[in-house]
Structure formats: structure tokens, C-alpha cells
């Protein structure tokens, strides 16, 4: 049962007035997502519902698994069988998925995980907004691991970053987390999806060597190993154990370091491709608001109102939050003396802003964690308060 309708415009683009949860799945389908495994949880459940209805129409597979862990592991399996795969969840479910996310990072399994953030800890406020999972998205699974996390602020951006998430997952053979929040998930906005011929889709690099020469994690062609799916001439092994290029367990210290360095290097050497930010009126700004996700909208509102009252506010939106946009933050910290970090938690990303800005700017947090969304007035009153 769908609660939205899409219409085609004169150029063949699908247009609709949809929630971000719906937009995400519509974009994922265009991005080539053909497997969704899910488990019911507020406020992400619509994604499973839409997938269950739409995927069979597109030759894809939807499965409701017995729990969150099973959903994440099924996604890993399906991706290894060659399908672009995703799952969606929220706080408690995101906690449960962590071990399997680490497995995907370790075995370089392309996949997309959506976490629609709700207030925690524990069951918290299931129907209310939060951005409390910023650090969990980075460090939720155990061990040093590479990860990419994107955070959209509008319904349109949800679709855009969903395309990016699938493309980055395929390009770098890595799990990518789309970090949304409850306010965005259930917000309706007009969206125009790109026509199929307008899409720039990335597919995972395939092997060029004969089966006898194939290695599960071949490093001869760069840091991202070519991928072959299960079911074919290429026979290979994967394991969550620290492994060599063949996928077999290793314990030699030098080999371990080599393996660990490579899976991090493939992300860290490509930050310019992966890390995206947006700047709004930062050229003449004297006050910088740094934010991500839905509160960016509020920051833009505060900027507009503030500027009318003579406050030269600029906004830095972090679309990619992990790897953290160190360069963009440092550049702005060097020229803007006052930074406010706006987030719907008790202060998580602010620590990264402080680290990246290397003491070049005066940094304060504007935090809200009462389950409600933040208003421009709240931001402005914080700014005015600190002015004294």
C-alpha cells in the first residue's frame, strides 16, 4: 500500500510529493538497488513497505527478515551474489546491525544502510527526532574500520545522496551509511527524480583475470579489488577473519598491517571524491553555523533572518560527515572567528569541528535533545546570548 503517487513530467522524469523515506527508495531503485532486507522499526518502516511493493516490479527482491541482524547479514549475502543491496533501520536496529556492518567493511561488500535517527539511548523517543548516532555511525562496529556516512537535509537531497551512497559503495567496495532523521523521514516535499538516461551510475569493477588467477581481494589493480559475484567460474572465499588477498586468514604482523592499511587507504586517498560539503554565504561571514542533516534548513533560516538584523551569518553544511570534512572546516575556521555547531544531540560532531579547526576559531555548540526540532529563533538567541 503506497501513500504517494508519482507522475511523469513532459521530459519523462518522475515527479511527486513524497516523504524522504519514500524518496530514498525511489532513488535507490533508479540507482539499481535490487535487494532490500528489512525489519519493522519506527521511523524507517516506510522504506521496507515501499521496497516490498516496488522491488518485485523491478525484478528485485524484498525480504522481511526475523530481526535486524538477519536483515543486515542478508544484505551482505545478496550483495556478494551480485545485487545492489540495502537495508533501513533506526536507533535500536542500527545498534543490532553493527557487527554485520563491520563484516561488510572487512570483506569490502558494497551496500547501503539507512539509519533514520530517533532519540535514544535505548528505546528512547521512537517517534521523535535526534542526531544522536553520529559517533555510532563512525565507530559502531568494533575495530578500526573504514566507513562512509552521508547526511541529507531535504527530501530532494535524500534522493541525491542515495544515488551517491550507491555509487560510492560500488566504486570503493564499502558499506555506506545514509544518516537521516525522523523529521526528514516523514517530511513531504516535491521531488523530481532524474530520468534514467540522466543518471550517472557506478557499477562495481569486475575481474579481468582468468578464474585460475582470481583473488578475492586482489591488490594488483589498485586499492579496490575487482569483484566477482557468487555463481560462476570464479571460486573464492571470504571471511571476517583478517585475511590475505585470497581471503584466507592471516596472523603475520606485517601482513595484518598491509591488509588494514589498504582498506583504509582506498577511502582516505580519495577524500576529494568522497567528501562533500555545501557553503552558504561564507564569503563575508563573521559567524559560521556548521551543521548536517535536517537542522541545516534551520541554519539557513537563521542566516536569512540574522542577516536582515545585521548578523553576518554563513552556513557550512556537511553532506559527508564521515570521513570528516577536515579541510573545509579548517579553511573556514581560519577566516571566521566564531563557529556555532548546530546538532540535535548533546554535542558529538562539535568535537570533530574542534579537532579539525586546530584552535583557529572560537567554537560553541547549539544543542537540542528534547525530541523536538530546532527553530531559527533558538539558533539566533544562542548567537545573541554569546554576543552578550
Amino acid at each position, binding site marked *: 500500500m503506497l501513500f504517494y503517487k508519482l507522475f511523469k513530467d513532459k521530459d519523462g522524469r518522475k515527479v511527486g510529493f513524497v516523504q524522504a523515506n519514500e524518496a530514498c527508495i525511489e532513488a535507490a531503485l533508479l540507482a539499481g538497488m535490487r535487494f532490500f532486507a528489512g525489519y519493522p522499526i519506527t521511523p524507517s518502516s516506510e522504506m521496507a513497505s515501499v521496497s516490498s511493493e516496488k522491488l518485485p516490479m523491478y525484478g528485485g527482491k524484498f525480504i522481511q527478515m526475523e530481526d535486524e541482524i538477519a536483515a543486515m547479514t*542478508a544484505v551482505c549475502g545478496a550483495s556478494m551474489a551480485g545485487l545492489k543491496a540495502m537495508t533501513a533501520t533506526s536507533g535500536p536496529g542500527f545498534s543490532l546491525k553493527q557487527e554485520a556492518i563491520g563484516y561488510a567493511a572487512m570483506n569490502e561488500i558494497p551496500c547501503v544502510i539507512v539509519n533514520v535517527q530517533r532519540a535514544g539511548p535505548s528505546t528512547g523517543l521512537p517517534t521523535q527526532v535526534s542526531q544522536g548516532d553520529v559517533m555510532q555511525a563512525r565507530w559502531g562496529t568494533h575495530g578500526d574500520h573504514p566507513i562512509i556516512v552521508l547526511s541529507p537535509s531535504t527530501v530532494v537531497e535524500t534522493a541525491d545522496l542515495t544515488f551517491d551512497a550507491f555509487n560510492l559503495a560500488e566504486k570503493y567496495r564499502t558499506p555506506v551509511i545514509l544518516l537521516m532523521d525522523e523529521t526528514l523521514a516523514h517530511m513531504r516535499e516535491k521531488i523530481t527524480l532524474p530520468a534514467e538516461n540522466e543518471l550517472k551510475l557506478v557499477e562495481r569493477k569486475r575481474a579481468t583475470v582468468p578464474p585460475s588467477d582470481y583473488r578475492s581481494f586482489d591488490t594488483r589493480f589498485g586499492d579496490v579489488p575487482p569483484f566477482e559475484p557468487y555463481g560462476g567460474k570464479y571460486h573464492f572465499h571470504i571471511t571476517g577473519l583478517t585475511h590475505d588477498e585470497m581471503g584466507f586468514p592471516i596472523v603475520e604482523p606485517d601482513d595484518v598491517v598491509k591488509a588494514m592499511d589498504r582498506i583504509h587507504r582506498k577511502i582516505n586517498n580519495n577524500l576529494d571524491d568522497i567528501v562533500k560539503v555545501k557553503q552558504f554565504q561564507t564569503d563575508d561571514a563573521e559567524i559560521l553555523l556548521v551543521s548536517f542533516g535536517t537542522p541545516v534548513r534551520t541554519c539557513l533560516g537563521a542566516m536569512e533572518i540574522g542577516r536582515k538584523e545585521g548578523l553576518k551569518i554563513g552556513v557550512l553544511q556537511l553532506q559527508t560527515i564521515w570521513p570528516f570534512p577536515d579541510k573545509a572546516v579548517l579553511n573556514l575556521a581560519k577566516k571566521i572567528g566564531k563557529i556555532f555547531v548546530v546538532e540535535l544531540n548533546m554535542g558529538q560532531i562539535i568535537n570533530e569541528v574542534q579537532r579539525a579547526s586546530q584552535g583557529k576559531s572560537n567554537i560553541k555548540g547549539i544543542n537540542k535533545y528534547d525530541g523536538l526540532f530546532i527553530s531559527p529563533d533558538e539558533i539566533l538567541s544562542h548567537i545573541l546570548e554569546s554576543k552578550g
Partner: protein
Amino acid sequence: MMENIIHDYLRPKKSFPHVWCPGCGDGIVLNAMVRAIHSLGKSKDEVVFVSGIGCSSRAPAYTDFSSLHGIHGRALPFATGIKLANPKLTVVVFSGDGDALAIGGNHFIHACRRNIDITVVVINNNIYGMTGGQASPTMPTGAYGATAPYGNLDRPFDVCKLAAAAGANYVARATAFQFFQLEKCIKEGIEKKGFSVIEAVTPCPSLYSFFNNTGRGVDMLKKLRDRAVTTQKAATLSPAELEDKIVTGVFANENFREYCAGYAELVEKAERSKKNEESL
């Protein structure tokens, strides 16, 4: 004389030795599984061998099938993702008693209920071997282990009763001593459309024996031979006579609709809806 085909199925580039202790039953079960696949004439290309964590879960690394050594307890959801993504594949899972029934117990019953065409061999040695001999969900009440120094309080699961009750299409049990019966059960399980569970009862002469004084591998195999009774024989025995017995044979052989086949039917309905959508 039995033809030894195992060498044709070992991974050419994997360095041995394997991790299993002398007298372990895991190699016997692996050999039975390989022979079952061989006798079905399956190409290695179409097989995916999946496992979780534990001694027996190391098996997929050794054979020349594509394979996935997963995370503890989750072999079945990994396998479910693979099978649903590509239903043409033959997916075989190895999972120990702890992997399949404790940490993976929920996945186990739901895989039975879903009845997806996967064959799982539950290698049951009644103990956690890899972690040092802790009590497992099939350890007999009163037996000793690293976490049961005063004797195990829990009652053991009956793997086959559990699987049959949860809706698996094929359920069978054999011991590591009954090699040909084991091979036949695995073969029937793979042939069966739907979820198949084969419980292979194996000896752990390292840790189970260390805590319970059950002798060496050969002693334990002989004990399995002596304890095994067929389902037909079991029907004639009293509960007291059955106390220490291992009932072997087939416990379920059903033809409930297989999940991927059901999905294919669902796609037809969805395609009709798509036509409505496209006519907008």
C-alpha cells in the same frame, strides 16, 4: 572400495593443515557433504558454501566452492540473502550446535518457517569447541564443560524435532560413524526443494572428552555407533530405553511451497501493478 574424491574438491591454493583436532568429526562430515554434491553431478560453479563461526564453520575455506565464512550465528541469513538474490545457486551451510541453535537459534527456526531452498548441516558435538569447551544448547543435562563445572543445568535441544516443528521440508539425523547414511541424508537434503536440516552428531575428543572422560576419537565414534538407533527401532523402545540413544533417520519429508518459488509467483502479481503504475 570407495573412490576418494575429496582431493578434487579441495582448494588448490589453500595451505593446509586445517584447524581440526585428530579424531574430530568435522572432516568426516565435510567428506560426506562433498560426496553428496559430487553424486548429484553439480558443478562447483553453482555451489556456494556458507558457514558461521566455530570449528566446523572453518570447512568452507578448504573446499573449492565459492564460500562465505560469516559471523557467529548468522550463517543462515547470509545464505538466505545469497539464495534469494540468485535462486539458481545451490547453497549449503555448515553450522555448529552453538552457532545454529544458541546465537543463531532465531535464524534457524525462521529459516525452517520460511522454507527457502537451503541445506544446512548442523554439526552437533554438544559443546563449544573453538572457545574452550563451554556448555552448548545440545549439551546433555549433567554433562561437564568449561562453563558447567558442576554439571550442565540446561536441557538439550532436539535439533530435529525443533526443525520439523518449525516447518522445514526435510529433516534427518545421522552420526559421524554412519558415513554413508550421512552422505545420503545430505544428498536428499540438497535435492529437496525447500529448507533441509541434517543433524550430524560428531565426537569432540579434545574438549568434550577432556571434561567428560569420553575417550579418544575412535572411542567416541564407537560410542556413537552403539547409541544410534533407527526411527523404526526407536518406535519400539520405552522412554527409559531411549534415554541414551541417538535416533537416526528422516524426521520430516514434506513438500511445502519453497520461498523462492513463492516469490516468483508474487512477481507476477507485482508486474500487473507495475502496468497500472506506468499507465499514469
